[in-house]
């Protein structure tokens, strides 16, 4: 399978194409530096993203901003968002606190990125 991605390493935005056999990279073309090659290898096999979202806090007038403790698989973003929006937290919450453990059954947690007193 041929896959095409845009490198995010710099504003060049090189178009990188790769031939894949399942998770195995057969060839990569189009990168113009090592940052691009490394990015492509990761992005083509298991792409991951940090996810930031908003969560409901009981009795609070503002939503709580949260993030994944580390990048999660790109394919799980919407499941992750669904889980976050389906839950509520009690006050107070502090920055850095884990509000959901092992989101979507992954080793990734959801943590608060601000204080709600």
């Amino acid at each position, binding site marked *: 399978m041929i896959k095409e991605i845009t490198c995010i390493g710099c504003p*060049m935005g090189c178009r990188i194409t790769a031939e894949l056999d399942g998770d195995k990279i057969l060839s990569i073309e189009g990168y113009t530096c090592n940052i691009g090659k490394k990015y492509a290898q990761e992005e083509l096999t298991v792409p991951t993203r940090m996810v930031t979202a908003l969560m409901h806090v009981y009795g609070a007038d*503002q939503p709580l901003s949260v993030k994944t403790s580390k990048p999660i698989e*790109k394919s799980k973003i919407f499941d992750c968002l669904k889980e976050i929006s389906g839950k509520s937290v009690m006050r107070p919450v502090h*920055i850095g606190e884990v509000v959901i453990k092992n989101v979507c059954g992954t080793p990734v947690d959801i943590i608060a990125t601000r204080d709600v007193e």
Partner: protein
Amino acid sequence: MRNVDILIIGGGPAGLAAAISAYEAGSRNILILEREENLGGILKQCIHNGFGLHTFKEELTGPEYAQRYIDKVLEYGIPAQCDTMVIDITPDKVVTAVSRGAGLEHFKAKSIILAMGCRERPRGSLGTPGWRCSGIFTAGTAQKFTNLKGMMPGKRVVILGSGDIGLIMARRMTFMGAKVLACVELMPFSAGLKRNIVQCLDDYDIPLLLSHTVVDIAGRERLEGVTVAEVDPKTLKPIEGTEQYYECDTLLLSVGLIPENELTTMAGVKISPATNGAEVNENLETSVEGIFSCGNVLHVHDLVDYVSEESAKAGVNAHKYVQGQLPKEENTLEVVSGFGVSGAVPQHISQELDEPITIMFRPRGVFKDAQVCIDVGDVQVAAKKSRILTPGEMVTLKFSPEYLRKNTNADKITVRVEAQQS
């Protein structure tokens, strides 16, 4: 009248960094005035990640990045008066502010640091024809509704302008269940970071329409749709026959940021037409002695990390000024923006410096395999090669002060790009 050594106007990333560095330099009579209820400025609503890679070597969200500085301000015990709006600054540094708690107050400051940030260009300034319906928001206003108020402005969205806030909001609205139909950009290139284009648009199959613009807005009450047309990349005029109608209830604008310099003007500070910010020297001191400017009120930055860095410098220099240690500016050279350069900062550089001098600017277009050069008089004193320059990313270039001392006959400093425009 309260006497303050260093009065900082604005408690966002710029004001916080300036306060901390002034304190660390030794100042103890510092006061931050912040118009909103909490410190942190615009970062409070920037809940996405991507902040702090340069400063902290880790990727933080906006509120987290701000909190690191707020914690420091609290730790040092630097007073910050929130919910306080500055309404006047005089050239002799008398500041008038109002707050619910203290009413109308006057401050006499030895030094002032302007850190008021910037605002978004609105629809009105674009002259886009059509109806004046609801459902048209600047991206930042929509961001405030979603991220701070928990309210959704709409469900079918078109984004005009591909600035970073617009790209970030494309993803946010998608996350919140909206359908983002397109991001429309007038120029043949995006002003946003490549990473944001990939991770906010490409990831969710949101088309980026370069060399396109919104030519008509439909909807008597709430927005019902927009007409998008291709533009001629040279004239930027819409090309007839390329119109396409998008049915949508929300149009988000990300068409540029303007430093908020109303107070700066009141203080009698000279404004640069290129940056819409104050003219400053290498100490970030404005044309009014003892008044400094930093962050997005000085010029619109690409990364908050650079705002913090610049503002820390303003804080130290304000401290030096109060201590009488900041040399009076004499024999300054004007910094001129040459080919491919827009709004170089600082605008004035003293010829009698000891430390390396940093000049920042934005490229005027996209240049590939380019070289950025600094000339003192006719002599090239610094050059930096770059595979690509884009208006979305600021360029920073340093040069040694010895060149200024060597070229005493020089009448100006020129910053320019050498390249083929692509």
